[in-house]
């Protein structure tokens, strides 16, 4: 393996210690490259962008070659060659080039992921290398539209189990023969698939090169194809026998050249003073350097062949000098410690209240200072975990682009407020629901161009992603200027599905129907949005993060989905309640109201269930004391009922007393103890006792059964 070879050559140096840095860096470079490639799409690329894209590929190649990831180095090498020609204006950027480079980026991601996990990358990117080679050579490349996408999917799918065969057909007298051959592959089941098709030059006339995946033998292929073209005009080459590195890469100048033993003269290192590039053996270097051409004379001697070395200002902003990478565990540890500090501070404050303020004046001042500093410290530490929404938004331009071309729609993406920050944990969890909402907007919201034009709208639809702060939460909106929601259709659909509705429902409530399980507005399920994961799952995910979601729409004008989330999962506004000797915390967001209980309000239903009538509706009662088997301080059921809401349902929780509202530092119970039904986490109270945070959703679900 290359890795072992590399570290072997490294002697006492273990290069694997730099791998994680390389993987992160390569990931950043890939993301950056993708963003830049998307920005040159459909427009003429400016020099700085092309240079920046080149640098991304170049940087990945250099690192990959150094750390022995030869496949990554090989692919980036051909990409770099193409990009170099582009930035030198020896070639013009085409849509196909951008597509191919984006596809290469996807393959690189896979290769890197495999390398990172230490598994063998089972990705055949030879056709991609061939195509990039053809593009670089200025040859016309024809890619079957589905095959273009397929190449990436092929990498992970079963396609690779079928051997890769290169078919060269020609010279072609009748171009129709190729189409006929291509049709064979769609008509004959099991024959195989065409991965790519390219024009190739042949001294006797135009030829086509088809990369084909097929299990058929050469003889069978000859027999089949000879229906359409003479046998002698068919050349078949099996690609799988060859090592991963394809031909164009093998000739790569010096990339893969192994370091020669010190004594042997090699071209990997040399002095400019010596034209033959043989290192001056033991000559004092100062001497060999000093007589070299004076710098002032240099410009006259050689008109610098590399262009624009110095005016590379702007673009490719490198934040590295002002940021540091820290493992998330370190940050979490810090947050935990600050949490402990907050608790200690709260304990001190509680004890301080009993002291005589006059006698302990300086102590009181100190406690007040401590409280302020603790709060500031807590806020600063929490800010470390905050990540800009751009981290999520950045994935959508690419997704929408692929989606739009699949759907035959024109969709533009507008992002607002990418700098808005959100807790890292939330960022990770909100990505999937947002992806679903954006897909939905493009798939169901935005109309096909003809329909839009007929409605007097521009052919290109716009999906807007906007993030902003509002109070203690963040609001993320997914807007589209598509067809909007149709109230009548929604109501009709709901009736068909047996969902209870009535005509007096507000628009808000009608739109909310799309969050009902099993409700889908599309006439048929498409492979884009309708994957069985409906809007109900989106809503459930958002609610489980302590958030909420709202829909607003105008028929024919578009729709807006607003997702509201708390800024962080680590701190929560809680309401503490007393049950016997225990204190429990309820998330304030799910508390609707609290009511003093009169025994006559309680009604028994069936054998075991009890309900209470609150504002004309009956809510099931759950006694926390009974459920958790808490020893009562006194006889009789406690007197406070707290109405809580989750997952669209309300219940009444019976507790003994209401203690108060305050912010709590949420501790994960599962990782510190084990998962406990009905409990979502724990916190430490001002007096040092542990208090459990109740999982309201669990209670609501329990009441339903």
């Amino acid at each position, binding site marked *: 393996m290359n890795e072992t070879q590399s570290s072997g050559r490294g002697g006492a140096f273990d290069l694997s210690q730099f791998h994680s840095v390389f993987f992160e860096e390569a990931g950043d470079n890939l993301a950056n490259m993708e963003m830049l490639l998307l920005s040159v799409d459909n427009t003429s690329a400016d020099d700085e962008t092309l240079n920046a894209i080149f640098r991304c590929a170049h940087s990945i190649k250099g690192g990959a070659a*150094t750390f022995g990831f030869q496949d990554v180095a090989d692919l980036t090498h051909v990409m770099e060659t193409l990009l170099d020609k582009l930035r030198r204006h020896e070639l013009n950027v085409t849509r196909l080039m951008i597509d191919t480079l984006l596809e290469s980026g996807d393959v690189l991601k896979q290769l890197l992921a495999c390398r990172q996990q230490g598994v063998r990358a089972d990705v055949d990117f030879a056709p991609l290398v061939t195509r990039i080679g053809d593009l670089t050579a200025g040859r016309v490349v024809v890619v079957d539209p589905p095959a273009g996408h397929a190449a990436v999917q092929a990498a992970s799918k079963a396609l690779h189990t079928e051997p890769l065969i290169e078919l060269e057909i020609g010279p072609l007298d009748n171009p129709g023969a190729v189409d006929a051959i291509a049709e064979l592959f769609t008509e004959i089941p099991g024959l195989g698939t065409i991965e790519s098709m390219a024009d190739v030059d042949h001294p006797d006339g135009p030829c086509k090169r088809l990369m084909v995946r097929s299990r058929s033998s050469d003889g069978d292929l000859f027999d089949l194809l000879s229906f359409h073209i003479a046998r002698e005009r068919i050349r078949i080459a099996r690609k799988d026998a060859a090592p991963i590195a394809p031909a164009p890469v093998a000739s790569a100048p010096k990339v893969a050249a192994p370091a020669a033993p010190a004594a042997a003269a090699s071209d990997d290192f040399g002095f400019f003073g010596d034209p033959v590039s043989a290192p001056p053996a033991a000559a004092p270097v100062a001497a060999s350097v000093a007589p070299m051409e004076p710098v002032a004379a240099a410009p006259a001697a050689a008109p610098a*062949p590399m262009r624009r070395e110095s005016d590379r200002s702007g673009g490719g902003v490198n934040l590295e000098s002002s940021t540091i990478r820290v493992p998330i565990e370190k940050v979490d540890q810090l947050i935990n410690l600050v949490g402990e500090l907050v608790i200690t501070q709260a304990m001190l404050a509680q004890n301080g209240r009993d002291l005589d303020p006059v006698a302990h004046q300086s102590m009181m001042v100190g406690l007040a200072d401590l409280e302020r500093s603790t709060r500031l410290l807590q806020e600063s530490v929490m800010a470390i975990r905050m990540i800009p929404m751009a981290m999520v938004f950045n994935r959508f331009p690419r997704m929408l682009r692929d989606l739009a071309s699949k759907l035959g729609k024109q969709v533009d993406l507008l992002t607002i407020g990418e700098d808005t920050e959100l807790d890292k944990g939330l960022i990770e969890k909100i990505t999937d629901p947002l992806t679903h909402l954006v897909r939905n907007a493009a798939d169901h919201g935005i109309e096909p161009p003809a329909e839009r034009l007929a409605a007097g709208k521009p052919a290109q639809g716009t999906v807007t992603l906007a993030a902003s702060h509002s109070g203690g939460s963040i609001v993320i909106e997914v807007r589209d200027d598509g067809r909007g929601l149709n109230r009548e259709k929604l109501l009709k659909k709901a009736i068909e599905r047996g969902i209870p509705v009535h005509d007096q429902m507000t628009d808000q409530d009608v739109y909310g129907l799309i969050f009902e399980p099993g409700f889908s507005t599309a006439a048929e399920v498409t492979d884009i949005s309708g994957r069985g994961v409906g809007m109900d799952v989106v809503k459930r995910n958002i609610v489980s993060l302590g958030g909420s979601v709202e829909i607003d729409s105008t028929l024919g004008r578009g729709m807006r989905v607003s997702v509201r989330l708390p800024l962080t999962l680590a701190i929560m506004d809680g309401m503490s309640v007393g049950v016997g000797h225990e204190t429990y915390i309820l998330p304030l967001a799910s508390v609707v109201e609290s009511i003093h209980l009169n025994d006559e309000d309680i009604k028994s239903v069936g054998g075991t269930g009890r309900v209470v009538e609150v504002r004309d509706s009956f809510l099931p009662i759950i006694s926390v004391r009974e459920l958790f088997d808490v020893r009562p301080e006194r006889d009789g059921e406690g007197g406070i009922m707290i109405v809580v809401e989750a997952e669209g349902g309300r219940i009444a929780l019976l507790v003994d007393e209401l203690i108060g509202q305050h912010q709590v530092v949420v501790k994960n119970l599962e990782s510190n103890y084990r998962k406990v039904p009905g409990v979502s986490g724990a916190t430490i109270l001002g007096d040092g006792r542990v208090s459990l945070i109740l999982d309201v959703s669990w209670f609501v679900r329990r009441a339903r059964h």
Partner: protein
Amino acid sequence: MRVILVVDDSASMRQMVTFTLKSSGFEVIEAIDGQDALDKLGDRSIDLVLTDQNMPRMDGLGLIRNLRALMRFQGTPILMLTTESGDEMKQAGRAAGATGWLVKPFDPVRLLQVIDKVLPRAVPQ
């Protein structure tokens, strides 16, 4: 202690080179591109410069030209760490005032061998 300036926009390459050099007893100044290198140097003198070519803001050749324009860097060896070794690169490097080049990829042992040639007896045997 001999001081080496290492300039590369790739953090992994920079760490690898820096680690190699520090393990061999050199002091290292790291910079992420030509401009950063000039900023970090101030009025310090150094014994050797190792620089990448392709970097944002100011590339390797730009850095070399800037360094050579300073009196105290007239005699300092400057090596370009580059993936290219074509004539075009060599011409440009020579014109800018580089002392020599080392083609990437290289491993720590090769790097130290080359440094030993440029700074004799600097690498502990």
